[in-house]
Every structure is written in structure tokens, then in C-alpha cells.
């Protein structure tokens, strides 16, 4: 059964310099309890895609089209009131910086209680406090009885992110969207938060959509990965397949750029040449072709024709290279 189905999502921001086409025709499905990663570099459209799922792209001129079907209901077609009922209850979201997600003037207990009260107006004050206390305990905050009456500034970065996770999960949402939830945290704290998200997912049975640039995080906790480049999904596959035999040259480049803990001193790193394209002035054809090592081998096609996402091997890839070359050229090329 499909829990969430995104169909041909387009998001365009009108700016003084021209239209920024941040998301161009993204489609994907999420099943209940599944963990999906959306990976990409700055400007790839991963966060805009995530925000679209809850209609959180704000701006003077935002144009969104396509469908975001949550159990068949189109979030993009809902009234504002209906969307508010979905937000935080059926689909919750956590962001990179916990400090901007928390109100500095209220105690964390009150904020967690409020996240529950929004969808349960009948709840009594005493009940809200108990729920907040229980949530703080579950996300592993020591001395919850004392911490519940403290303010966000009294918490460390990792503890704040725990509070945000507690708020997001207080209504047992069906989907948790986590946009770079550990990017601002130290690596030992990141490990704690990732474990927490996985444990909470187990308990609530929520699906998790994880937005990240960190392929290590993807490999650690997700089952399926979508790689975005310049507003499009260029590869989608099971994590094990995408890492062992990527079927898109960009994914391959990304994996090769990852520095490993057991790399050899001063060994030359492989990198993707060039820079990510400007979304206002995208290259013609495949947006990756100016940086792609294989583009020349296909003549002019890469610079004239946008490749569709098609089935390759066990996943999908948006590349003009023929299947056998994709599987062959890139397959198993990610040595450790």
C-alpha cells in the first residue's frame, strides 16, 4: 500500500532575476514505515521537494503543480484549514537548526504540549504536561521532570534536537520528514539523534523521509535513496544497490567524492569537475552534461535532450547511456 504518492511535482519561484525552477517533475512513492533518503547538493531541490509535501514553500511568487497524495488525498489541493490538520498530526517535520524551530520565550514542556494541543483541543493542561514529560523521557532527555520547565537556551544543540524530535512525534505521525536533522550537530551527537529517530520510527511505525547531503547518513539508516540534481531525480534505487553499483554518473561521482575513514594519506581524491549549475540558467539537455565524464561519448544528445528517469537494473536512472553501459561502466566501480 502506498502512503504517500508524489506525482510530477514542479515548484518554481519567481525572482527579480528570472524564474528559479527548483523542482522539475519529481515523482515518488513512500510506503508505511519505510525510510527514504533524498540526497543532493545545495540547490538540487531536495529541501523544496520536502517543503512541498506540507506546502511550506513561502514567498511572493511560488508556483507549485502536480500532486502530493497522502492516502489518496491531494495535499496541494486542500484548503488551508485541511492542511493545518495534516501538519504535525499526520505528517511532521524537523529541520536542521533546532533553535529556529523552538520559541525562546516558552519552556520546552509548554511547546511540546502545544504541539499536541493543536490537534487535541480537548486535552486538559495536566494531561498536556504528562504527555510532554513522557515525550522528554522517551527521547532520552535526562531529568525530564526538571528539564520540562526549562527554556531552549538552557539545552545543548543535541538536547534541543531531541526536544524537536519529541515535538514532531507527540502526535504519532504517519510520516516524519527530517530535513538535514543532524547537519548542525557534532558527530557523536549525530549518532545519538540518528539512533533516536530509528528507535522512534520503530515505536510509532512512522515512515521517514530523510533529506541529507551526507551519504554516510544515508547508508546508515535508510532503505531507499533518491538522488536529485538541478531539480530532478536522477537516480532512485535501494540503498545497497545505489552504493554498490550506481547507475547514474552523478551518483557515481558523489560516491567517489566521499572521503573514507580508511583512505590512504595524500591519495588523490576523485572529484566532480565544475560547479553545480545555476537554476535560473540551466544547461540545455541533461543538466549534468557539462560535468559528466561520459557526455562526450554520446555525441550531441546529452546537450540537447533531457533524459527521462527510466528503469535500469533494479532501480531507475535518468541518463542517456544505454543500460548495459550504465550497469557496466559504473557497476562495482565504487571501491572501498
Amino acid at each position, binding site marked *: 500500500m502506498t502512503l504517500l504518492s508524489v506525482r510530477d511535482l514542479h515548484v518554481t519561484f519567481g525572482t527579480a532575476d528570472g524564474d528559479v525552477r527548483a523542482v522539475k517533475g519529481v515523482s515518488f512513492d513512500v510506503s508505511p514505515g519505510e525510510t527514504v533518503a533524498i540526497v543532493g547538493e545545495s540547490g538540487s531541490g531536495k529541501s523544496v521537494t520536502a517543503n512541498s509535501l506540507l506546502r511550506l514553500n513561502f514567498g511572493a511568487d511560488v508556483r507549485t503543480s502536480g500532486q502530493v497524495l497522502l492516502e489518496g488525498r491531494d495535499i496541494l489541493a486542500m484548503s488551508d484549514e485541511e492542511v493545518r490538520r495534516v501538519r504535525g498530526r499526520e505528517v511532521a517535520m524537523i529541520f536542521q537548526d533546532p533553535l529556529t524551530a523552538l520559541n525562546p520565550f516558552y519552556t520546552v514542556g509548554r511547546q511540546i504540549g502545544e504541539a499536541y494541543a493543536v490537534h487535541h483541543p480537548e486535552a486538559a493542561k495536566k494531561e498536556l504536561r504528562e504527555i510532554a514529560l513522557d515525550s522528554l523521557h522517551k527521547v532520552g532527555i*535526562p531529568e525530564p521532570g526538571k528539564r520540562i520547565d526549562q527554556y531552549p537556551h538552557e539545552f545543548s544543540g543535541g538536547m534541543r534536537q531531541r526536544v524537536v524530535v519529541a515535538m514532531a512525534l507527540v502526535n504519532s505521525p504517519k510520516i516524519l520528514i527530517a530535513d538535514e536533522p543532524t547537519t548542525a550537530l557534532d558527530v557523536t551527537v549525530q*549518532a545519538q539523534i540518528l539512533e533516536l529517530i530509528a528507535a522512534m520510527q520503530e515505536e510509532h511505525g512512522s515512515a521517514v523521509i530523510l533529506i541529507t547531503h551526507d551519504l554516510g547518513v544515508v*547508508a546508515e539508516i535508510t532503505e531507499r535513496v533518491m538522488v536529485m540534481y538541478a531539480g530532478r531525480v536522477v537516480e532512485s534505487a535501494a540503498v545497497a544497490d545505489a552504493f*554498490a553499483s550506481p547507475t547514474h554518473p552523478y551518483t557515481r561521482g*558523489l560516491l567517489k*567524492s566521499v572521503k*573514507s575513514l580508511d583512505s590512504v*594519506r595524500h591519495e588523490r*581524491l576523485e*572529484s566532480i569537475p565544475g560547479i553545480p549549475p545555476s537554476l535560473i540558467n540551466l544547461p540545455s539537455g541533461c543538466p549534468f552534461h557539462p560535468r559528466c565524464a561520459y557526455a562526450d561519448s554520446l555525441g550531441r544528445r546529452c546537450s540537447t535532450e533531457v533524459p527521462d528517469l527510466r528503469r535500469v537494473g533494479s532501480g531507475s536512472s535518468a541518463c542517456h547511456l544505454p543500460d548495459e553501459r550504465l550497469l557496466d561502466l559504473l557497476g562495482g566501480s565504487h571501491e572501498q
Partner: protein
Amino acid sequence: MSSDVVLEARSLVKWFPTGSSKLLSRPTDMVQAVDGVSFRLERGTTLAVVGESGCGKSTLGRLLARLIEPTSGSVMLDGSDVTAADSRELLALRRDIQVVFQDPYACLNPRHSIGQSIGTPIRIQKTLSRAGEKERVRELMGLVGLNPEHYNRFPHEFSGGQRQRAGIARALALSPKVIIADEPVSALDVSIQAQILNLMEDLQRQLGLSYVFIAHDLSVVRHIADRVGVMYLGKVVEIGDPESVYDTTAHPYTRALLSAVPVADPRSAGRRTRIVLTGDVPSPVDPPSGCRFRTRCPKAEARCAIEEPPLVDAPGRRASGHLVACHFPD
């Protein structure tokens, strides 16, 4: 092995007063940001300093370049004492130590062209004429992989990676001996990080540069460092060759830090044992007695609270110059 030390830190200490409120804070409250750090950097090599937020690694970098004054201790550059230099001597020393920062956008003046920004140190030091400066800047731009024809463009017209190239070019303008690089790639995308790291290694080889590379990313460090120092709460807890520190880790904190790094290999997920540290880093205003890591250490015993472990040869690893500050090293 003959040693040719270019930069040496001797028992560097930096305590900052926490003077936020005179009413509430005792006048003796001090953040012990760096507390007795010593090391030697050999010419043409890279020393990496790793640690988490608040461990004092950036403060250490600033002390080395004397952007801030140490509370005690000294920094020696090719035998002369940086920390004792008067302002005239310091100006000369600045030619030899330059800094590259994390956010190149924050250290490029948005109203100056990229060429002007790169040439700023030359103008301050008056090492070249205006015409000579321009020529040198173009040469530097070529060296770091920027198009010299973009001399008159402004910082906003460049990508993050290109701006970091400009930051590196500016650091190179006076042909320094040592570059302190404070998280030079952590604000960049993965594919761009590799480009900048390769560039830094090329420049090191070409120009014989010595780097102090400050970072939180252990994978990056493994790649670039000739020697790695791990800091925790203002102290170096372990230092040595990367192979020795990573593969035969002696300190429990280093071990936890390494085990927490997510590995981009789904096959290894679940197979590695992760040591999850409990709790938060204690406040540097009032660090734990004895060993500063003991409050979170799985191996801590009574002795750890009383006696501070000195930084000494790790057992059985003397040959590699691997030092550790722990009563119960592995």
C-alpha cells in the same frame, strides 16, 4: 629522521573571562578554551586538529596566528617567538602565517572585486607596487584554479567553492610558510570538497607549505594529515600519525569519535560497533577534575577523577610518535 620544525606551540593556554553579567558571574569564572597545548609542525607537512564544537580547536588556530593573545605559553615560528613579537615584528611575521577560514563569503568584502580582495595582504604589507600586485593576483588566481580574467568580478558572482579558492589565493599572496586552515571545506558540497582538498595538497607540494588543518570531519583529516591531534575540552588527548591514531586508537574518546562517523557503505551498517557517548560535553568553565573526559568515559575509574593523565607515549607505539593522555589506554 631529521626534524625540521617550522611551527611549534609550547604549553599554549587561553582562558576567556565570562563577563556577561557582573552581578551573576563570579569574577573568577573563566572558560578554559585551550589549556596547555604543545605540538611541533614539521616543514612541508600537515598537522590536523580534530574535535567537536567547543573543544578549543578554533581558539588554538587563532592563537597560532596570534589573532588573539594567549593567557600563557608561546608559539615559535622558525625559532622566533610569535607571541613576544611587538607590532612591527608581528606585521613581518604575518607574512609567514596566514589563515583560511570556513566561510569564504564572510571574509571577502562584498564591495571589493575578487582581485582586490586577493591583493589586500600585498597592499597592507606594501610588498609590491600596484602594477606588481595586479600581476601577482592574476598569477595567484591561476594557481588556485580561478580564471584571471575574472579579476574584476564580485564575490557574489562566484560559487562557494570558487570563493574558497579566492580565500586560499589571498592566504598565499605573501608566500607564507604556514597556513592555518580552519574548517576550510566544511561549508562546501561534497563534490566540491574534494576539489579544494586536492588543490590544497597540490599547493603544498608545489610551494612547500605547512598546514595546520582544523576540522571536525575525521574522514577529511585521514586523507590530508601527516599528523593528527584530537582535542577534548581544551586539551590534546591523543596525537600521532593518522594510520596509528585511526587504526590503533589509544584514547577512548578518539575511539568513540571514530565509531560515530557514518560510513558511506550500507554493507558495513550494523556490523560496526558504535560507542555512543552519553550526555553532553561538560562546561569548559568548570571542567571535571583529573581527566576531563572521565564523566563520559566507559573506562573511567576512581583514579581518573584525581589525577590528570599526562600526554605520553602510547604503549607499544613509540616508533610512530603516537602520544595519548589516558590512564587506561588501549
